[in-house]
């Protein structure tokens, strides 16, 4: 049931409001980043936890309006980068000073200044892997199926539309009251999503 407004749903008795079977949550569309920003502040202050906002581009300050904590990603990257650098340095030490010591141009076996470029490069390589795969892991991507993709309007999330989705298993979720709240925050349309 795409594009269902709760306005129509509310006219019906309570039992009929819910789609048959379990449902994922509520999706509300907002017209502008500014509308979305203020709505997010209100949803955050209302104490919701299992919810999200969706935008075609990163809107700055929205993570604050949603009350998100800092991303732990930099720590993952730091650990990965140090691992890569240590691995690079260790590999070179092991090859030249332990596994296969060869005198090359009269240099000492453990000529560490010459090991710095590759240590640096491998540190960067591992850190970059940490950044990309860490980001994908924290974001639970790839996830090619998601209930939100059932919504027709949601196709515009990568174009010019701004959404708030509140999941039904949020403790404060109530299909009728939550829908009203989103509408009062200036949502253009509110839709209940089946899971």
């Amino acid at each position: 049931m795409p594009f269902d407004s709760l306005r129509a749903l509310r006219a019906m008795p309570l039992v009929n409001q819910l789609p048959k079977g379990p449902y994922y949550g509520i999706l509300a569309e907002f017209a502008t980043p500014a509308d979305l920003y203020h709505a997010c502040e209100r949803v955050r202050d209302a104490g919701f936890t299992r919810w999200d906002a969706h935008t075609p581009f990163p809107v700055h300050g929205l993570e604050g309006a949603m009350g998100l904590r800092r991303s732990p990603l930099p720590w993952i990257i730091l650990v990965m980068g140090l691992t890569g650098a240590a691995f690079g340095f260790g590999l070179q030490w092991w090859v030249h000073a332990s596994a296969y010591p060869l005198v090359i141009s009269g240099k000492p076996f453990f000529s560490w200044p010459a090991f710095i470029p590759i240590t640096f490069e491998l540190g960067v390589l591992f850190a970059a892997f940490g950044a990309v795969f860490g980001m994908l892991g924290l974001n639970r991507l790839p996830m090619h199926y998601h209930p939100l993709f059932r919504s027709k309007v949601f196709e515009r999330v990568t174009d010019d539309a701004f959404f708030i989705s509140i999941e039904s298993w949020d403790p404060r979720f109530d299909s009728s009251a939550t829908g009203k709240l989103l509408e009062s925050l200036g949502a253009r349309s509110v839709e209940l999503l089946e899971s």
Partner: protein
Amino acid sequence: MTRAIRDGTNALLFKLEAGNALAQTEAELLDNPVAGQPTLILRSPDFHSITEAVAEPVERRTPIGWWVFFIPSFALLALLGVAVSWLFWEGIGIWGLNVPVGWAWDITNFVFWVGIGHAGTLISAILFLFRQKWRTSINRSAEAMTIFAVMCALTFPGIHVGRVWVAYWMFPIPNQMSMWPNFRSPLLWDVFAVSVYGTVSVLFWYVGLIPDLATMRDRAKTRPRKLAYGFFALGWRGSVRQWHHYESAYLVLAALATPLVLSVHSVVSMDFAVSVLPGWHTTVFPPYFVAGAIFSGFAMVVTLMVISRTAFHLEHIITLRHFDYMAKIMLVTGSMVGYAYATEFFTAWYSGNPYEMFTFLNRAMGPYAWAYWIMVSCNVISPQIFWFKKPRTSIPILFVMSIVINIGMWFERFVIIVTSLHRDFLPSAWGYFRPTVWDVSCLLGSFGLFFTMFCLFARFLPIVATAEVKTVLPQADPHYESGPEREIKDHQAARPARGAPEPAPEGAS
């Protein structure tokens, strides 16, 4: 009222869209002291029209113009295939290099292509860290350029090794001979630097592409397109919780790519500088190579941007302001390169070393003087016209200059490599390198590889980072309506319905 003025300007731009008229207006807009904040994107579009402008060319039927570029590029790529096959069959004796010139066109091409790549990373990473928002219009294609340039670059040392089937010996792979590469050699640093650079560039580019691939997925009309874009979009749903980690990853990748790109050309320069050959053995090489790399890379970005903005009608996204900035960077880096040329001569003279002095006099006045002076006139003299605003904002001049600069930068590497080698310490070991038809074929073929890849990229992927460009529009700011001159009503009225043609901005309201 203010809005009326703004819209009046937009209306003017809109009417003057065709031909030179747009260029004129754009040029006037470039340094508008009244507007304060520079206008990065012209015609003040809404979010949807940005998506439309970028995604639509990818979705329409393949235009004839694309084939006009693709077929010659592909023909040159085929030439590379022939040249490389013959090389593998016969050996590197088919090239003109021989003692004393053991490195010639192949390594020149390698350094040239690695250098081209550097501007892409500079635009995507360094300008990102410096919050230079104008980069958003060009960073996607500049990053693609980096990747394709690194592909071309890696080809040359790869085929130069002669026995390509043992090229994997360059990597520390455990093997039955218990044999390891020599990690103290700059040539091995180079293997690591360039392959890490290639890998990180691909990752950076792909991370930037994910939101735009999702846009392509959501716009796709046919099932194959939906599946293909959908697969690579990884199920991106623009969630702020995702953007949160995404932006963190992007920022750190930029911070990692910045020292990486500086290290790569420094390491490339150490291939030369760590040897004890006069002409190569100088400490100025790392910064000098990096400046030259950025110089030639920006010239290549200009070449590609002139073509793609015209072909895809992106004049309002890739504006003259962007070209103006790039021309300034070319002026700065070109002058730095010129300064490095002078420093080399000064150092040779000041060293009092007869071999050093001979090498540099020979470079400027010996048998390869023609190459040296081509280099100086293309790289040092000609970019000086960018002191003036007219050449910085004239597309034909920029296009010609971008090609001139890259010819000069190719000759720079040729001069460094070949002139330092061709007259060895003893006159009995002097020689003169002449390229063979296979040297030339490999160089032309590498351009074929580069442009074939770029054509494919421009055909199937959004060439502008739409998600990023949207962030530089004024209405992307969540506090947009609270600005002193703007009213929320105006703003909502200005948002046209989806799919509607771009409305002629109403004048006074």
